[in-house]
Structures are given as structure tokens and as C-alpha cells.
């Protein structure tokens, strides 16, 4: 186990998450892609804390921030999806284009 190995794992998680977020039609699956990318960020933050600056709390706090961001993202994601669904029965990202302006 080394910083490099951990960062490669983090990179893999981020890349897979990106693939999911870009390729999936469904809004929910897109959110799962985002979650997976943030999962990679957690690994990266934790490994930087351990291998670079373990005497300072910054890395740990960053992990907490990422976890909070994930919950916020999910809450807002589902709220928006519920609102869209209520308004017009849209479930696929391709159909939610009116949101883009």
C-alpha cells in the first residue's frame, strides 16, 4: 500500500464514475456516476492525509465535506427529479433539455 497505489484506485473510481455519468440515460444512474466519482475523491483525500500531512486535520475534514456534498447532491437530485416528474413525466436526461435553457 502506497500513496501512488491509492491514487490509482481513486483515479479508477473517478473514471468509472465519469463513464457512468456520461453514458447513462437515466437521471438516477447519472447521479450514481457522480457518487462514484466522489467515492474516488474520498479515497484520494484520505490517502493524502495519511501519506502527506497526517498531523493536520485537513484531509479528514475534506472527507467529511465530500460526504456532506454527496448527501446534498442526492437530496437535491431526487427533489429536482420529483419536481420534473410531477411536471411532465420526464425521466430520461435527454428529455430534460428544457432545463438547459
Amino acid at each position: 500500500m502506497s500513496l501512488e497505489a491509492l491514487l490509482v484506485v481513486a483515479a479508477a473510481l473517478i473514471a468509472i464514475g465519469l463513464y457512468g455519468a456520461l453514458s447513462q440515460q437515466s437521471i438516477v444512474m447519472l447521479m450514481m456516476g457522480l457518487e462514484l466519482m466522489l467515492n474516488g475523491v474520498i479515497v484520494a483525500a484520505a490517502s493524502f492525509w495519511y501519506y502527506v500531512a497526517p498531523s493536520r486535520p485537513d484531509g479528514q475534514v475534506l472527507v467529511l465535506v465530500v460526504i456532506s456534498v454527496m448527501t446534498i447532491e442526492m437530496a437535491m437530485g431526487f427533489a429536482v427529479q420529483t419536481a420534473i416528474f410531477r411536471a411532465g413525466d420526464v425521466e430520461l436526461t435527454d428529455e430534460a433539455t428544457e432545463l438547459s435553457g
Partner: protein
Amino acid sequence: MGLTERVAHAAARRPHVLLVPVPGQRPLRWAAEDVLDERGWARAASPAGADVLLCCGEPGPELADHVEVAWEAMPGPRVRVVATALAEVRPALLTGAARLSDLPVQRRDARDRSAPALSAAADPAAEPEVGHDMDHSMDMGMGMDMDMGLPGGLQMAGRVQDRDGLRLEGLNLSLGPLLPGWPGGLRLDVVLSGDVLTRADVVRLDRRPEPGAPPSLVALDALAMLLDAAGWTDGALRARRARATGASGPPTQDLLRRLRRARLLRWSLRGLPAPGSEDLVAHLDRLVDAVHGAGLPVAEDSRLARDVVGLDVGTASLVVAAHSALEAVGAGV
């Protein structure tokens, strides 16, 4: 005695019984419930958890179909017995338990059941849609029409509006008639959105009037069903004991004393629709009065169908249970 025999004998000491109440045969159901309570045997909640299937009376043609589905859904070792007279109830249950541990019979039964029958058996509580003629195709928003007959016979009912104003896919489902605590032969054909009933039809299978019984005992039976549905195991047990010993016996006094103190039960029941009363709490009090000799409330199937719409499955079950033991007026379908 080999190991398997030993296990089988132990298992037969406390079988789980799926009771099939048959319309018009209320005394048989009472007798069967009394035997179960007396021996400490469990009443199965679903075919999957049952060893013995007891028909309290000869089921009519419509109910027989449901019994067949339930029988197929029992995992086995399994025994099916019928009691057509009061004196047959106890022997039927005892023979049933005895045949459970009869290994050669059970092995033959297992061999004779074809594998597909075992796997394709649907639960009577979740069996495919019957009776409705609905348009099962719907636009999927992707420019294709799909037939929503899913593998396994689950039928979607198209989109239905739920109580939060979301148009989600509805599911056609039949509740009953073999759910624990449901009156004999009553089936609720519903359209579910999530677990909320958005439409309900009351179906009475093989409708037949119940034989007369003292109103106080019927009231105690109604209490037992209501308490069972409210999940108060002890209360329901005591109500059945009171039913067995008569309305003037000590168990009845004990039950009524406990009912007066049952605040949590009243909290659970308040505000729910009831047959002929303001809510289920008032209904509970009316049943208690009926034990003392006041008149019984009367159930109305058309009103039941209206009342349960907008409730979730669990609450709807409570409302159905409140109708259970009462004489029903008005044809459902």
C-alpha cells in the same frame, strides 16, 4: 429411528397451519382457531410459511381456485385437510400433523410435484390480475408501446395518480381471501400505487350467509379479528378465549378490562373509517357494547370499497378486519 425421522417428528409437534375460512362455515373456523390456540400451534401468515392447509368447510368453486394456488405455493412437507363438521376439526388437524411426519408420503408428494409447478406458483396475496379488463399497453415515453405483462404474470395497470399527485405505475393486485384475519371468501381487487390503494373492488367468493350465533360471541369474534389486524397478539388471543368460554366468563371480563386501558390501540385506530361508526375507535366501543348485548354494527361492501381507497395496504387491512366478522349487506360485485 433415523435422524430425518426424528427431525420430522419434532417438526410435526408444532405445525404452522394455513386456515381457509369458508363462507357460511363460521363455527368451523372458530373451532379450528380454538384448537390452534389450545395446542400452541401457529397460524401461518402465508402459504410459504405453512405446513398444513385446513379448509374450514368444503370450499365453493371460486374459493377452491384460490385454495389450489395456495396449495401449490406451500413449500412442503405439506398436508391438506378438510373439516366439514364441527366434530371433524380436531381430528383433521391431528391427522394433518401426523401425515406431516410420514416421510414416504411426503417424499412421493415432492417427487410428484413438477419443478415448474413449484417455481411458478404465485402467492394468492400477490396473484395475477383477475377480473379487470384494462389497457396494459402504455407509451413508455420512448416512442414505443410496450405490453406491460411482465414475466411472472405481474400486471401493471398503467399510470395512476397517487395521493401525492405523482403519476407512477400502478399495480393490479388481489388482496385476500387467505390473508390471516380476513373474512371467509372476501377478496379485494385493488390498483396499487406504491402501497396506496387507488382503486378497490370488493369481491365475495361463493357468497353464503353465516349460520346464526349469539351476537355477543360474534362481537367477540369481530374484536379478535380487529385486534389481530392491529397487531395486538395477546389481545386477539384473549378475545378468542373469551369467544370460546362465552360472553359472561372471566376471560371476557379480563379482555374488556384490558381494552379499556389500551391507549396505544386507540391511538392506532383513531380517525380510520369504520362500518357505521365515526371511526375505528368508536367501532371498537360499539363492539364492546355488543358484547354486553347491544346491537351489532352492519358492514356494507360498497362502503368498504369506497373507504379503503387512499389508504395504504396495512391500514386497509385494518378497515377490512373491522368489517370481517359482521354480517355484510349489499352485493360487492
